[in-house]
């Protein structure tokens, strides 16, 4: 994990278990905003904002039109109207690494629009998203920016390393987001936490921050840590195989405020 500013080539995009980085031209704005009240009256001195009710959106994805079988942007995204598990990892002066900023959410895909490209006449696709999809229980998640726990890479054994320091503990749950882009068996992914120290022996289960038993191939999802549950300052990824030996995955944790 590095700190500082960066450039967009170090951004990575994952949707529904697939790494779509090579197709992404731009996505955003990746926003968490608080709307102003719509019910101000003549008698109100000021117009207030609803500070407890954020509006979360990943904006619009513009990508390269590509119909590569199984994994092309067109093949994966040409059906609008459903929920999409979106993760945007922002590497800092390098490819994303543990501890780097990440934006996650489950958003409704509002449309799929084939577009005449403006760069070298390349055909592109425009994909606008709604706010969080209400059909997917994501708890009372009131943020979308969190920390990357594991960059997209293969792992074959359980994690015994230190995790990432998220600055401070919290007490309102959060959501564990994961995309397994390849797996040769069945595996469970999870987020562990530690309240005291960032060493292997201090990490324990974070209730709710666990995937279902993932099948081989591609899978994705979320694990909801209920509001009111304490989340330790230190976080790390974990896995447990029930069959197979390798899983390639990316995961992150978004701490609710």
């Amino acid at each position, binding site marked *: 994990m590095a700190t*500082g*500013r*960066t*450039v967009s*080539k170090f951004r990575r995009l994952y949707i529904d278990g697939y790494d779509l980085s090579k197709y992404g031209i731009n996505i955003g704005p990746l926003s968490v905003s608080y709307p102003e009240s719509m019910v101000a009256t003549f008698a109100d001195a000021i117009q207030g904002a609803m500070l407890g009710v954020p509006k979360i959106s990943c904006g619009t994805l513009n990508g390269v039109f590509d119909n590569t079988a199984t994994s092309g942007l067109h093949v994966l995204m040409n059906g609008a109207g459903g929920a999409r598990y979106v993760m945007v990892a922002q590497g800092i*002066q*390098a490819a994303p690494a543990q501890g780097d900023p990440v934006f996650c959410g489950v958003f409704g895909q509002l449309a799929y629009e084939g577009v005449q490209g403006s760069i070298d006449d390349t055909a592109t696709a425009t994909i606008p998203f709604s706010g969080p999809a209400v059909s997917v229980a994501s708890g009372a998640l009131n943020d979308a920016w969190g920390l990357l726990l594991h960059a997209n890479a293969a792992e074959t054994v359980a994690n015994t390393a230190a995790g990432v320091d998220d600055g401070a503990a919290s007490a309102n749950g959060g959501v564990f987001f994961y995309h397994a882009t390849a797996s040769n068996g069945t595996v469970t992914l999870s987020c562990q936490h530690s309240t005291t120290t960032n060493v292997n022996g201090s990490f324990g289960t974070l209730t709710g921050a666990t995937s279902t038993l993932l099948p081989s191939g591609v899978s994705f999802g979320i694990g909801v840590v209920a509001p009111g549950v304490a989340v330790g300052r230190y976080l790390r990824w974990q896995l447990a195989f029930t069959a197979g030996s390798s899983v390639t995955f990316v995961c992150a944790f978004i701490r609710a405020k």
Partner: protein
Amino acid sequence: MTFNVLSLTDAISKLTILNGTTPIRIYDLDEVPDEILPRFCPCLWPDVNAGVVSGSRIDRMSFGGGGITSTGARKDLVYTINYCFCYMPVGTGRMEIKNHFPKVATITGAILAALIGSLDTVTGSVSVDVSSWSIPGRSISDPAGSNQFSGSLLSLLVNEFTELG
């Protein structure tokens, strides 16, 4: 702040670019010979004739003073670094033109593939991209200006953050 041209030319000099099965010779900035002899070819070298670095500018990205430490204004150091590729001296061999130019095009493609595929991260630079290339014909001079070669010209656009060491 570090001006990382030397890191970049060093990284390029360590690339493996094949002419068939034989690697071409790639010179670092401190290795460019004054005169390129036929036995050095094919070779790639920083363009010390037309300019190793060109198109340089500093783009201010934020408010504030300074700009060469983490507490100063954010500024981008943007420049183009230029290379020459010499395939063979003009007048070498029989049927020179029809023999040389396909090879120039093929090896230039291999150079492009290596630059695009291997220079994603170079110490000190946040972005390195091939910005242009050309095959100008039999008009590439060696640094001494005494020999003419068939070959190509290539340029890379580099972006550095001035606040980085």
